[in-house]
């Protein structure tokens, strides 16, 4: 008698397997539904929207035409605007890498209380709105009334205000500033994985500090720098607030253009096309470079 349940458990093995196979789906269902509901469906609708027609007086017409895509592909205005978007994002990424990686390294070498203090200084800005941080730059460099411009002009060092507002340089600098914490955090995480004795090991073999950084530390934190770069690049390319404040209506990037089409011109289909193109380009760039990085470092970092 007592053995009967045991054998039944054994013979019902396959159904237990089936149940085990269903469990992951059942468990992820709530999150999956949320994901589909708030991301996939609106995204699909945006893609659909980009194929609709629009006219000043007729509004949106739910038809399937390639008008918007044709316009983006042929009008050099859009090409220039997309190039600007990625150029600005790339330069901002380079700046964060060049300054953020050494910053993280120095931070990591600091001792106890200083380390936590400066970590707070670096990460603190994340708690402040991007708008506030970008407005800071505008206050310092904005035209004749900018604090720095006023000061430098009163000293006679410059004759006219430094061009910052409505320039690509201004946009790059402000974006690099806003994105810096992400790069520092990413490199910091890579540094945490470093064996604390590894620099001593290189030192005992006769390496100079410069050699240690170049040949031992840098190659090991490179994946951190690159993943930080991917984060910063995609956030910069799709950033809205900073380009909107620095570039305004004069110097548009993809995100601000899409915004204008949606809310000012009310040409939603064209705005949708710009947004979709930005998304597709970003996904391609991020997935592509991620694959490259993984292939390059597969042997070493598994």
């Amino acid at each position, binding site marked *: 008698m007592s053995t009967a349940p045991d054998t039944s458990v054994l013979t019902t093995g396959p159904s237990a397997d089936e149940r085990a196979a269903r469990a992951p789906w059942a468990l992820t269902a709530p999150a999956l539904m949320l994901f589909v509901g708030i991301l996939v469906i609106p995204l699909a609708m945006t893609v659909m929207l980009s194929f609709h027609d629009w006219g000043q007086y007729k509004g949106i017409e739910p038809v399937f035409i390639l008008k918007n895509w044709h316009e983006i592909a042929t009008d050099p205005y859009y090409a220039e605007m997309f190039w600007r978007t990625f150029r600005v994002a790339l330069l901002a990424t380079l700046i964060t890498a060049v300054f953020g990686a050494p910053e993280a390294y120095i931070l990591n070498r600091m001792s106890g209380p200083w380390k936590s203090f400066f970590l707070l200084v670096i990460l603190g800005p994340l708690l402040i709105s991007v708008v506030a941080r970008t407005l800071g730059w505008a206050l310092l460099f904005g035209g004749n009334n900018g604090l720095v411009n006023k000061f430098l002009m009163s000293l006679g060092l410059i004759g006219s205000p430094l061009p910052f507002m409505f320039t690509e340089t201004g946009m790059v600098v402000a974006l690099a500033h806003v994105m810096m914490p992400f790069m520092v955090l990413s490199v910091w995480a890579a540094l945490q994985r470093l*064996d604390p004795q590894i620099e*001593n*090991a290189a*030192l005992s*073999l*006769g390496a100079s500090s410069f050699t240690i950084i170049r040949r031992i530390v840098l190659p*090991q934190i490179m994946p951190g720098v690159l993943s930080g770069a991917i984060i910063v690049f995609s956030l910069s390319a799709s950033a809205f607030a900073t380009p909107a404040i620095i570039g305004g209506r004069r110097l548009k990037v993809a995100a601000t253009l899409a915004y204008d089409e949606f809310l000012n011109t009310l040409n939603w289909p064209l705005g949708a096309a710009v947004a979709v193109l930005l998304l597709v380009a970003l996904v391609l760039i991020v997935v592509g470079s991620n694959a490259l990085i993984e292939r390059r470092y597969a042997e*070493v970092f598994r």
Partner: protein
Amino acid sequence: MSFLELDRVAKQFGPQTVVDDFSLAVGKGEFISLLGPSGCGKTTTLQMIAGFLDPSRGAIRLEGRDLTAVRPAKRGLGIVFQSYALFPHMTAAENVSFGLEMRRVPKANRSERVRAALAMVGLAGFEDRYPRRMSGGQQQRVALARALVVRPSVLLLDEPLSNLDAKLREEMQIELRQIQRNLGTTTILVTHDQIEAMSLSDRIVVMSQGRIEQIGTPQETYERPVSAFVSQFLGKTNDFAATIDRTAAPARLVAGSWSAPAPAGIAGPVTVSIRPERIGFGDTGLAAKIVTRIFQGNHWLFQCETESGPAIVIRQNDGQPQPAEGEAVRLGWRPEDMSLRTAGGAK
């Protein structure tokens, strides 16, 4: 003149003295072990020799020249870290080659020496492996090859075998000792494994709380421990309280019902310290009862309750009948096998 000399070296971290009054003279080609419990300052001592920490007091000399003024990169020492600290982005050969590159050894010569060093540690054919794809023992050997290939004047090993399983550790110990003998490299090994220290070293430095307890050959420190700490730390030991009986002539040393002629120059209460494997069961001696009897393959381990407290006895499994649990026995030993301590210190 000794090869490497530490002269009353001390290290303080803030108010805490971690190493104090550490004096040691190491001969050329000698294998020394620093042995002590966790946190007693072994690593700190090694790091001061390596130059990663500056001593607060005292001097470290190599062939008579002051080492403390020399930067770590210029000391020419070989170090194997507890974590190995291999460069994970370099292959085994590149790891080993790094020190030679820093010394500007010509390329042809370099690859020759790298190959020889890897072969020496039994890793021929592993040149192009990355550390992450090697076992713990293999990584450890790469670390050893990397330290040895630059022909260091002194080899410093910080618990290099502690991450390995027992069998591999034993193999590596034998290998390490052979390599060290063949090359004649002066070696300092940090360990908290007393068996490792005893089986590898020419001399052992037993440390406790930053101070040297005893320096001596493995046999000396094991058989003539100068303090209760050393005898407890190196293997198992039995301590019995004993007194000198001056009413008898000549005077006798008495522990319970065990007694022997008292050695000269000892007075007052003493502690008799005797290793478990030196105690025999006999007709006379300390009265005891066997509490448990444990079979351990090549020997038997007895836990006894004697008239002077608990004791352990180890007997070879030589086929002779052994007393059973609960049996009353008498424990005896030869006076020359024990060490005596008065309250003040060693005999």
